[in-house]
């Protein structure tokens, strides 16, 4: 068991930590908010660094890294709220590489190759000059030339999927439709539906989507993708929480009130300490979930759901405490804590209702809910003979004299004496 990064993972964390710190500055995050929540320049740099397809197999044009290695990058991504759809994209890329039919899709000339510079070792090359038509779709996604995402919500009868994460910028959208996994390709709208967290959420028309997997294969591939998504978002939340706490510590050490640093007050310290404790627990659970999902362990999906819910809850708690301890400045647009506060809510909700996630966990751990009408049926005989609702045994003298527990104690003490 090794719960810390390997040396290689440490190096990856440092390299991407530097990249995000340099490129995904709070100014860049705010600039992306003015658009659709996407920074194309950052995406190209990430693609040049091999991040979008790093956890796709080498044969499919990816980097062949593990999900855990990807999580190391996602942790840094989360710390900086980097406005690029790294997690959705990386998970969809792995789905495309694993769902048999998706590997046969190729990029169609003039249809799928987007009107934007192609990514190639950081150089800007117009796709008109060096197009990537006829290459496998998986490879075009793994390279980051095409942006991919998943639609976690239902596909409506008219083929619409609403509020698709990264829907504003994704060229490829995978979705679950009936017993199938489908892949839709189309020009992204480039505009997001205005939202709390300035995420690139958009409705997408999936009516022309192609089926890439069906039946058990589809269910397996989709469930795995969702588990990966949740586990990675849990890791992203750990990054968010860690950074917002660092921000809170720095601010409360520097800000003086009543002649002393705000961070010297125990009330403030204890709020931050609780947030740090929960966030560290969330970080450990998140990486444990990633490891379990990566290893294909049976408890992977369960841990991923739990890690996501707890990660979101503890990150929101941390952002709330840090905003509070900033006082009025925390509420101002000028300070960065509000960027974290809004995303702490948004990242979870774009995946669906937390109560639905809890309900799925309950179904798995406790068995499905019995519809209320069935409860009183004869076939649900009481599993336990019911006692009368009050004790039938005569109340002993000891009980009268002041509590059974105390009586038992007194008895034991007498015996000892």
């Amino acid at each position, binding site marked *: *068991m*090794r*719960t*810390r990064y390997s040396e290689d*993972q440490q190096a990856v964390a440092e390299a991407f930590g530097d990249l995000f710190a340099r490129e995904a500055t709070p100014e860049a995050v705010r600039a992306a908010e003015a658009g659709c929540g996407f920074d194309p320049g950052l995406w190209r740099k990430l693609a040049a660094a091999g991040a979008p397809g790093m956890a796709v197999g080498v044969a499919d044009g990816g980097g062949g890294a593990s999900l*855990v290695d990807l999580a*190391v990058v996602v942790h840094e991504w989360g710390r900086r709220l980097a406005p690029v759809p790294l997690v959705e994209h990386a998970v969809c890329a792995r789905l495309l590489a694993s769902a048999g039919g998706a590997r046969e899709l190729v990029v169609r000339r003039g249809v799928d190759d987007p009107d934007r510079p192609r990514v190639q070792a950081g150089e800007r090359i117009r796709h008109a000059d060096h197009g990537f038509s006829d290459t496998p779709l998986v490879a075009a996604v793994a390279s980051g030339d095409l942006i991919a995402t998943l639609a976690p919500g239902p596909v409506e009868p008219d083929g619409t999927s609403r509020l698709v994460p990264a829907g504003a910028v994704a060229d490829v959208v995978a979705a679950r439709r009936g017993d199938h996994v489908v892949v839709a390709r189309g020009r992204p709208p480039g505009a997001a539906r205005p939202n709390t967290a300035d995420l690139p959420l958009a409705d997408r028309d999936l009516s022309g989507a192609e089926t890439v997997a069906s039946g058990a294969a589809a269910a397996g591939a989709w469930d795995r993708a969702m588990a990966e998504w949740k586990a990675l978002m849990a890791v992203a939340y750990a990054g968010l929480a860690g950074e917002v*706490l660092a921000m809170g510590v720095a601010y409360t*050490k520097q800000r003086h009130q009543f002649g002393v*640093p705000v*961070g*010297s*007050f*125990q009330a403030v*310290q*204890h709020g*931050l*300490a*609780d947030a*740090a*404790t*929960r966030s*560290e*627990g*969330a970080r*450990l*659970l998140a990486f*444990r979930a990633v*490891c*379990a999902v990566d290893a294909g362990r049976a408890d992977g999906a369960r841990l991923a759901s*739990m890690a996501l*819910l*707890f990660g979101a809850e503890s990150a929101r708690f941390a952002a709330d405490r840090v905003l509070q301890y900033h006082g009025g400045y925390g509420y101002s647009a000028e300070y960065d804590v509000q960027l974290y506060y809004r995303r702490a809510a948004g990242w979870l909700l774009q995946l669906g209702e937390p*109560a639905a996630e*809890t*309900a799925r*966990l*309950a179904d798995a751990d*406790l*068995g499905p*809910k019995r519809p*209320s009408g069935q*409860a009183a049926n004869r076939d*649900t005989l009481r599993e*336990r003979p*019911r*006692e009368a*609702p*009050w*004790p039938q*045994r005569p109340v002993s003298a000891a*009980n009268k004299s002041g509590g059974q*527990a*105390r009586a*038992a*104690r007194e*008895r034991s*003490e007498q*015996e*000892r004496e």
Partner: protein
Amino acid sequence: MDFSMPAQAEAFREEVRQFLADHLTGEMIAATRDGTIHSGALHRAIADRGWLSGAVPAELGGGGMDPVELCVLVEELQLHQAPADALGVAVVVVSMILEHGNEHLHGAVAPRLLSGEALGCLGYSEPESGSDVAAARTRAVRDGDRWVINGSKMWTTLAHVADYVLLLTRTDPEAPKHRGLTFFVVPLDTAGIEIRAVSTMGDERSNATFYDDVVLGDEWRLGGVNDGWTVMKTALKYERGIAGGQFPSPPVIEAAVDWARRARRADGSRPIDDDDVRHKLVRAMIDVEVCRSFAYHTAALASEGAMFGVEGSMTKLFASESYKKHCGWFLDMMGAEGLLTRDDPGAHMEGRIEEHFRHAPVTAIYGGTSEINRNLVAEGWLGLPRSR
């Protein structure tokens, strides 16, 4: 990074489960109802298996069990509600003796503790000092090659069944408070010691111990004169891993699930089909997985030989505070039935949830209160200024 339990540790878990199936009896658990969460037979069986000495670091001459396996042992003991409070104490006391003790303590005391034949208990807290442990006022005064001890200790749990108390005393009242302390290993049958029971809300028995002109040879001194704080600091590192407390909630959740399946509301519905009940059960299970992640992390750090400090505080803080919360939720869930104690024939699972509800508060107090742990996290993890 790999959080999966090594195959060897999983095999060890099976061994512990088999051991508990063979040795942990209903009578042992029932016997703890007198408030003493200890079974001599179980303690000796654990020692005979080599797990007590195994928990002592190899560099001190102990078994040096892999910390991950030690974590599994503690987890299984707690999941099975085994009355093993004395195990952690024994490991701490014997480790401190092996690190700081003289020949006499090494020869006369350590082997008896390691074999499980003798028990230790901790004498740190006093009526006037708990979290501020270095403020201890129990006096030890040198008289030739003997010491005369006067004072009182609070929360000397297990003293009434133990053979030795690890006693923190003040030997120089003039020195700054951390520099005038000295430790002794005191045989509890020494003349002048009185042990009085302290009963608790959770039915556990603790003790107050009184020391009235207790005369002790210098061979019972542990560590240097006025160097008690150095010894104290090492106690912390030995508590890690063995002190337990990371897994208090599963027995409560088990009982809550059982109740929610069996009980029927006035309309015939089962609580287990109620969304609020389901939500709280799931939420509690999430907290358990957080505790498990913390426990595995600290064990993995220890097995790499890395020292950890604040992680232990975080683990204890999170586990005890979430445990208290769960007990409150599930007591509420049961309504009036939740109030029934095990003395009532209709109490669900012998009043398990009610009993845990009364026990839970102490877990956020003993071994470092939640407030002290928050201070440690604020200072040691976040780097905030010392606030006391």
